[in-house]
């Protein structure tokens, strides 16, 4: 299958990238190697650092930092370091809710600044995305929306920690692909990769969409129907193929947008052919580009 090639886009970027970053690790040593410099740099800059653990015991996070020479205990006592769990915070409700999460990030940033911190940085373990957690099927939608709704307007850096041992490779590939910055070993290209469009509300779709990529396509549709603001754009110039089901899912999402429409940029020939067979699917779509 097409999971063996390495995407240039997903290749590791320079150390300490800003914004929304996927961090993939395979063992505890690699995990600690990412954790310690990130926290140390944040504390040195006067930023508040928050760690949302999932499968890692918070005590082990504190212990790892302390043994690396970071005065984690004092930072925690002074509110400069918060180590908690997803279960106690954003997963404590009935279901993971990306709409609520967007507001929580803005609140967290406001609170950190109000408390005198010079900024906010966070690490979130997201292994729960591979478990039967209510709302886990919305993790990809969340990762895709974060860039435009949270990281473009806020001076925030957040690293999403993906543990290869805790997530199937195909799911990991799609989720990591939703980040514009990546740290860690190379990740295979998923059959259909979705990524945020910098500076605009929308996504880039790359690869080939079919029955096998239906979950990713539903996430793209969720981004289309739930993103706030005006028009949503989907750049389809990297999409080679899609099936009628995928097109129907997008068309339905466009129909359910409260405000604004859905603009498809440079759609591939199969999409045009399907619209020829089913013109009704194009009713809420605007086609742009050759």
């Amino acid at each position, binding site marked *: 299958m097409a999971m063996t090639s390495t995407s240039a886009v997903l290749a590791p970027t320079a150390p300490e990238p800003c914004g929304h970053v996927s961090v993939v690790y395979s063992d505890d040593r690699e995990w600690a190697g990412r954790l310690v410099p990130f926290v140390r740099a944040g504390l040195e800059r006067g930023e508040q650092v928050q760690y949302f653990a999932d499968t890692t015991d918070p005590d082990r996070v504190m212990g790892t930092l302390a043994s690396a020479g970071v005065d984690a205990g004092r930072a925690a006592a002074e509110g400069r370091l918060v180590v908690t769990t997803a279960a106690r915070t954003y997963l404590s409700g009935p279901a993971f809710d990306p709409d609520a999460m967007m507001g929580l990030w803005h609140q967290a940033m406001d609170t950190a600044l109000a408390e005198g911190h010079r900024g906010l940085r966070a690490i979130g373990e997201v292994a729960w995305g591979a478990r039967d957690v209510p709302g886990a099927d919305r993790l990809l939608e969340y990762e895709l929306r974060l860039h435009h709704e949270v990281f473009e307007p806020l001076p925030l850096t957040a690293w999403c920690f993906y543990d290869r041992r805790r997530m199937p490779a195909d799911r990991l590939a799609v989720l990591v692909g939703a980040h514009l910055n990546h740290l860690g070993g190379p990740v295979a290209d998923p059959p259909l990769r979705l990524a945020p469009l910098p500076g605009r509300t929308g996504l880039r779709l790359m*690869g080939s969409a079919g029955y096998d990529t239906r979950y990713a396509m539903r996430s793209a549709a969720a981004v289309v129907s739930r993103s706030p603001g005006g028009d949503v754009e989907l750049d389809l110039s990297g999409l080679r*193929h899609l099936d*009628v089901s995928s097109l129907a899912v997008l068309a339905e999402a466009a129909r359910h947008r409260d405000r604004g429409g859905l603009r498809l940029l440079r759609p591939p020939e199969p999409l045009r052919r399907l619209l020829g067979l089913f013109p009704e699917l194009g009713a809420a779509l605007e086609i742009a580009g050759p």
Partner: protein
Amino acid sequence: MTTHSRTTTYFRQPPDRGPGSGLFHPALFYRSDQEYLDGVCRFLRVAVHGRGDRALVAVPGRRLEPLRALFERGEDGAERGRPDGTGHDVRERVTWVDMEEAGRNPGRVLSLFREFADRHETSESRPVIVGEPLWVGRGPAETREALRHQALVNLAFAGRRVSVLCPYDAALSEDVLTQARRIHPVVTEGGTRRISRDYADPLDVCASFDTPLPEPADPFVIDFGEHELALARGTAEDWASRCGLSPARRTDWLLAIGEATGNSVRHGGGQGTLRMWRSGNSLVAEIRDGGRLTDPLVGRRRPDPRSPHGGRGVWIMHQLCDLVEMRNEPGALVLRLHMTVD
């Protein structure tokens, strides 16, 4: 015709097999152009000039112009294009379609007919269709599928107020004409309309077309499950490109194979085998899985594209391919998609 009197009988009791009740589905066996034009035009005039019904005429391209010219002149030879007494222009009531194009894949013709009938059938109006998907020179596989289409008309329009006249060139093989007598409850030959004694259950007729498919010599083979669907699509595209399929046709090829392989994973036991080979001037893709086709009409009605049910994928395959063959084999469903290399 005396040569066929052994298998036919005179048509004496029209009510249950003639227009006015349910489906009226006669065959017209013609021996000359004149017999063809007379037979088809008479059928059309009764419906369109006489009752004001709508008509769809789907016949080979070369037949269209002579038919249209004769039909629009009327029985008395006068120009009849203009208002016919009911205030309608008869020309607007007839849709003319080149069957060599629309019916290049016989499996897509029924969808065309149903769409037309659905639009025009009312308690007062009986849409009429002239459908000729068989002609001398069609290949054996296309002929088989065209006959299957004809048999399925009986199922698709059972109980409907629809008339479908199917002309058959008497120069077609005796096998084809024999099947036509099994398919059509009523046969017109030499100007005489008779009930066909050989009329048979449409499902039995269809079963007789489920002949074993010829085994290819050296196919390209890919086994796939859900995780290999993208690889199967990519391989199918690359393979067709190497075989010289044009970009436009490659789009169709890939769309059809994408729907078929996706159906295998979704409905056919979660996995399947894709085989591809070249046969004469066509590329053939075979998709074999653990499914079973239970509805012979699947994919022969234009589906709601928003509904995942109702044969959306199979309908797309029929629209995009030049021929689609489907067979239930023991424990397996086999689809063959044919695409001509232009």
